[in-house]
């Protein structure tokens, strides 16, 4: 029996590209995913609930929301979370994401996140890397600036989604922008969206995101703090490890 309940508001259209952006390093994926939802005016499709996440209900403009939700349009779907996901929820949520993707004939799962770099403060335009589970995933090459992640370790929920994708032979990949680790990084999220524009012709205007960057940094301090507490227990520390294969 699944550990998650699905609350359906609207049917998920078939054959979408599914972006996943949940709290992680620099909140890059969360910021990018939320910006895609608002820019493309996606509609709420489902809410997800589980006894593996804290009992939280979010209120926005007087309406209640589940903290983990999926929005969609005919072309795209976006999974977001308002809370840092505890390690106890990561495996079962990854499996559920793959179940939803397969059931709704999702074409690709595109994970959005950051890769923390020590000199982020000196970087004006963060580079974006692609980490793919198969050589057959090539659409990210439409953007000449994206580099393939050749060495390194990915930890946390994104690793769990990629592993589940490998097991089920599902085409997933991650887009990772150079980012801060400890601080919300809307600049890195902007870099991701610019690459998404090139790959999927989304034509999202990133100007408002860059204009609101300082306010986003200010308002997401608490979420960043809670996220770091969760990341310490989710395998993220291995991202700073040189893999044995590399030695």
């Amino acid at each position, binding site marked *: 029996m699944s550990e998650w309940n699905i609350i359906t508001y609207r049917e998920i259209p078939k054959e979408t590209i599914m972006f996943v952006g949940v709290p992680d390093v620099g909140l890059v994926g969360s910021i990018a995913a939320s910006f895609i939802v608002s820019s493309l005016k996606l509609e709420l499709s489902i809410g997800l609930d589980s006894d593996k996440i804290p009992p939280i209900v979010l209120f926005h403009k007087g309406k209640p929301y589940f903290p983990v939700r999926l929005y969609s349009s005919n072309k795209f779907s976006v999974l977001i979370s308002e809370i840092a996901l505890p390690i106890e929820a990561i495996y079962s949520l990854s499996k559920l994401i793959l179940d939803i993707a397969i059931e709704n004939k999702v074409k690709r799962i595109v994970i959005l996140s950051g890769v923390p770099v020590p000199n982020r*403060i000196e970087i004006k335009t963060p580079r974006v890397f692609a980490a793919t589970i198969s050589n057959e995933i090539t659409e990210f090459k439409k953007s000449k600036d994206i580099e393939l992640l050749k060495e390194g370790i990915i930890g946390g929920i994104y690793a769990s989604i990629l592993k589940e994708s490998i097991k089920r032979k599902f085409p997933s990949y991650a887009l990772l922008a150079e980012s801060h680790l*400890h*601080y919300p990084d809307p600049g890195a999220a902007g870099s991701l969206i610019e690459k998404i524009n090139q790959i999927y012709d989304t034509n999202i205007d990133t100007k408002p995101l860059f204009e609101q*960057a*300082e*306010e986003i*940094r*200010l*308002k997401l*301090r*608490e979420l*960043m*703090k809670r996220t770091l507490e969760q990341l310490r227990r989710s395998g993220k520390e291995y991202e700073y490890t040189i893999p044995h294969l590399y030695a």
Partner: protein
Amino acid sequence: MEDWFSEYIRRIKREIDKTFKEIESEFFSPLIDYNNKCLIPLYDVKETINEIIIHVDLPNVKSKKDIEVMISETEVIVEAKLVRSIKFEDLVIYGKQAYDKFRLEIPLNVPVETEKAKAIFRNGMLEIHIPKKIRFHKIEIE
């Protein structure tokens, strides 16, 4: 039981209670100082052999002229004025008041040379370097 031992146990209990209260207060508080209308910024502290490096994220602070850094032998205090005050409309936990500055207090756990500390502010990030009093010197291996 010996008096000194009872006192020792009481002291440990007081320390444990104090630590739990501090953890609880930090865990359940938003990053604000409501009474002083201050926001508490995010920061991180790194320690190298010879210095302590502190980064403080200060969004909506425009210039180094708006920032004050004070360092004692036990603490660093950072205050920074926001370019405009901010209200968190409809967020009950922040109250109805406007916040117009950041304030941060960071305790130091090693003796430092306060006069030799340096700070730089760029891209909304404050970086403070504080040399430690206890310095390491390289020795020659015979």
